Structures are given as C-alpha cells and as structure tokens.
C-alpha cells in the first residue's frame, strides 16, 4: 500500500487542486452542466471507499452503515454516469459531422 502522509500528502493535494482548476478553466459554458454532472460522476469513486469500509466492518452496526454507504456510492457513480452520457449524446454540430 502507498502511504500518503505529512508534507508529501499536502504537496499531492496542492498539485491535484491546481490540476482540477486548470481542467475546468478551459471548459466552454455550453458544457458546464454536463461537466458538473461528469465531475459529480467522478467523485462516485467514493463507492470504492465504501466497499473497503464495508469489507472491513466487523459489527452489525458497521455492516448496516456500510451497506447504505455502498448503495449510495453506487447510486452516485451509476446515476452520474447515465445522466452525463445522456446529456452529451444530444450535442450535435450543424456541419453534420458525427462528433
């Protein structure tokens, strides 16, 4: 396992934050809603965390909370993906080129 601790973790978070800002600063307004939806999908990665938490839960309470967490996380990922794809499917150019 990779240990991200101390200043190494801070550096990574800082650099990643700049990447996030860079990525979005070039997005045209017409794609803001799909992009918000797309970034919403990306934090659906939380489902992986919820799986790990449930995978290590030992008490019944932990299992119940973990079950809810995994279901919610899966909902985030799947729902986010489907609505983003549906929105993007509709964008067409008048030049007839299949983009």
């Amino acid at each position, binding site marked *: 396992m990779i240990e991200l601790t101390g200043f190494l973790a801070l550096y990574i978070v800082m650099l990643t934050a700049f990447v996030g800002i860079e990525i979005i600063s070039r997005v045209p*307004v017409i794609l803001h809603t799909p992009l918000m939806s797309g*970034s919403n999908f990306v934090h659906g990665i939380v489902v992986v965390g919820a799986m790990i938490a449930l995978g290590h839960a030992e008490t019944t309470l932990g299992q119940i909370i973990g079950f*809810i967490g*995994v279901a919610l996380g899966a909902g985030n990922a799947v729902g986010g993906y489907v609505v983003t794809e549906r929105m993007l499917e509709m964008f067409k150019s008048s030049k007839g080129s299949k983009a």
Partner: protein
Amino acid sequence: MSDLISRDALDLFIQASYFIAVILFILGIKRMSSPVTAKRGIKQAGLGMLLAVVVTFFLPGMSNLLLIITALFVGSLLAWISARRVAMTGMPQMVALYNGMGGGAAATIGAIALYAGRDYDTVIMSLAVLGGLIGSIAFSGSLVAYAKLEGLVSKTMRFPGQQFVNALIFLGAIGTGAALLLVEGYPTGLITAFFVLSLLAGVTITMPIGGADMPVVISLYNALTGLAVAFEGFVLDNPAMIIAGTVVGAAGTLLTQLMAKAMNRPLSNVLFSGFGDTGGSAAEGTEGNMKETEASDAAITMAYAEKVIIVPGYGLAVAQAQHKLWEFCERLMERGVDVKFAIHPVAGRMPGHMNVLLAEAGVPYDLIFDLEEINAEFDEADVALVIGANDVVNPDARSKKDSPIFGMPILNVDYADNVLVVKRGRGTGFSGVENPLFFADNTQMVFGDAQEVAGKFIQGIKSLAD
C-alpha cells in the same frame, strides 16, 4: 484467489489499476471540455470507475463480499432506472440527488471509522470527522435542493432569528466533532449526536435558499462532496479517492465561483440572505405602456429580417416549446435568415442547462453562443427574440444602481432594432424585479404560452410560403 498469485504481485496490480483509473478520470474530465471529445471523455472516466471497483474486491482482508455485491446491485439498479427516466428539464435536481448520495457515502465511511473506534492517529481521525461533517451536509443539503427543484417542497422556509438558529446547529456539529477528537474512546452517543447535527445543518442551511440560487448551491455541494471523498480517502489510505476527490473539490469550487459571479450573487449572499432582501425598488412600477403584437405578425417580422438572435430562457423549456421553436428557426434559415441563439450563463436552471435543452430539440451547438461571444452582435441584429427569459435581459442591471440585479451581466437585446418578447403574462420574473425592456420603444410583446406562440410562428411563416 490469492493462493494462486503472490500477495505482492496482486498488490502491485491493484495499485497500478487505481493509478490507471485516476489517469482515466483526469483525461476524461479534460476531454469533457470540448463538445467534440466530450462523449469519449465520459466513457473513459466510466472505464476508470469500472476498473477501480473491480480491483477493490481483491484488496487484502476484504470480507462481507455478498453484502457488498448486493449493495452495489441495489444502488446501481435504482440509480440506473431513475437516470434513464428523468426528462432533460429535470437534470439539475438529478445531479443534486446523485451528488447527495456521494456525500452520504463519504459520511458513512467516516461513521464506520468512528464507530469502530480504532486508534488511528489524530490527523487521520480529524479527517474522518471533517469528511463526515462535510459529507453529511452535502447529503442532506443536496436532498433538500432536490426536493425543492422537484417541487416536493415549495415553501422557502424563513423565520426571524433563523440565521442564529442555523449558526447554532452548525456550531453544534463542529463542537461535537471536535469533542470526538478530544474525548477518550469515541463514545457512541457523541458520534450519533455529531452525525445528527451535521445532517440537520445541511437541511437548515439549504431550506431558506430560493430556487434561483439553487444551481450555485448544487455546485457548491458537488465541490464539498469531492472534498469529503478526498478526506475519507486519507482515512482508508486510498490514493484514487484522494486524487479524484481533490480534483472535483477544486474544479467544483471554481465552477461555483463562476456561477455565483455570472448571477452577480456573492456566495455569502446566496447562503446567508434571501433574494430581494437587498433592495426596496423591486415593487416600484416602471412607467410606460407595453406594446402588444400578434404572433403571426411577429413571425413575418422575423421572416423578412436578415439577422435574428434568439434568447431562450427556462420558460421555454417549461412550456416544452424547444422543438417547435427549432422548427420555426429551420424555416427562417431556409429563407436565408441568419439565426443565432444567445445563452446567458444562468439560462435554465444551471449554467449550460439551456444548451442541453436546446440540444435535445436538435439545435446544433455551433449556432449557440454565450454572452461574451454574442453581446456585440445585438447592434447588427434586426430582431432579438426573447422567449421565456426575463431577468437576464433586464437593462436595469446595467444602469439602475439600486436595482437588486444591478451589476449582473446581461444580454444586450435592447440594442437590436426590434425586440420581440414572448411572455406568458404581464407579471415580473423569477426574482420579482420589474423589467423596463418590456416598456421600451423598440419592444413588442407577444403574450401567450411559449409552445402555442411557437406554433403560431410556424403557421405565420407557412402562410408566407403559400
């Protein structure tokens, strides 16, 4: 399964898979920044997600596998069905709903870590608490935003001293969270109190916010969920969560600021005051008369124009008139009229929402322009057709200092030779602010439901062809 392959090799494989997943996420979001590559972008990000989920099953010490698979199945199925069914006008609240789920999932990770009471170091536990707080607020707040936009809760709940009560609940959540870190052994009662207060804070913060400000709030909660995911990623030592969460947290924060700026609503105002609280001028009537015209006459005016710029608003989508409007535009274009669509950053219910609604009707994206691109062109336009929009074309935002919307960037439709405004009735807009555009000399009003009016436009232009 791990008997066949050595643990080290499997670990390497899992870590490499997370690494690839993160690259796919970042490339995916980047590709989503252009309409040409956007579809590939979301597919790539989806592939990354699938990879990350599958390899997680092979992490060391994973138990409760049946529970995990069942939960994955239940959550995915419900989300898939709802996501396929929702209409395009309902997108903002669906984004809010799925975002809330992510926040809730992040909170459960914090909850499990706390209830298990393992002695991680203080930094990790602080992050678990912080992720729990933010995730819970994003969860309950997003659900309230969803309920409001879906029309399940119509009241904007406000009462005297509300901000004080809200602050008290919020401080209570922070206080119990801090206490968790200071008290020995993570008492169950305190953990429960912390989560209840955090969830309550999300509700009370979101309840007083009006519908017009909701996009900003949803975007903010989207960013917050990203942060919560990153924090809980540290708790679980999962780099994919840390990086994906941080990217979304940073990008979402910037997007929130862009939206708030486009609406001329500083974030602090959105969160801590109701719309219209700032100015008393909203009630003053503007002097003058509205000039009314028939839809068929309006259609003929446009048919003989050289250049028509259309400013669609959410009212157009509510009336489901995009398809008819586009049919009319196609007929205009057959006659050689130069037709363009001008979209205000906050048209629809969130930035870019109007573009999606127009795309659904078949309007090509290269006819659609945003405010900065098109504002200079209104001078040369023969006709500006405003349909279902109001505040985003209100000239008071440019000139009238005491107007609640003063300073908001607007589309300068009043610079066109003729302005046609399609409007359901004579009332004021979403914000309740009077619009002098409707009384201007070069403005003519077409009253009626946008769908009916668009139908009459088509008939009007057909009558010319016969």
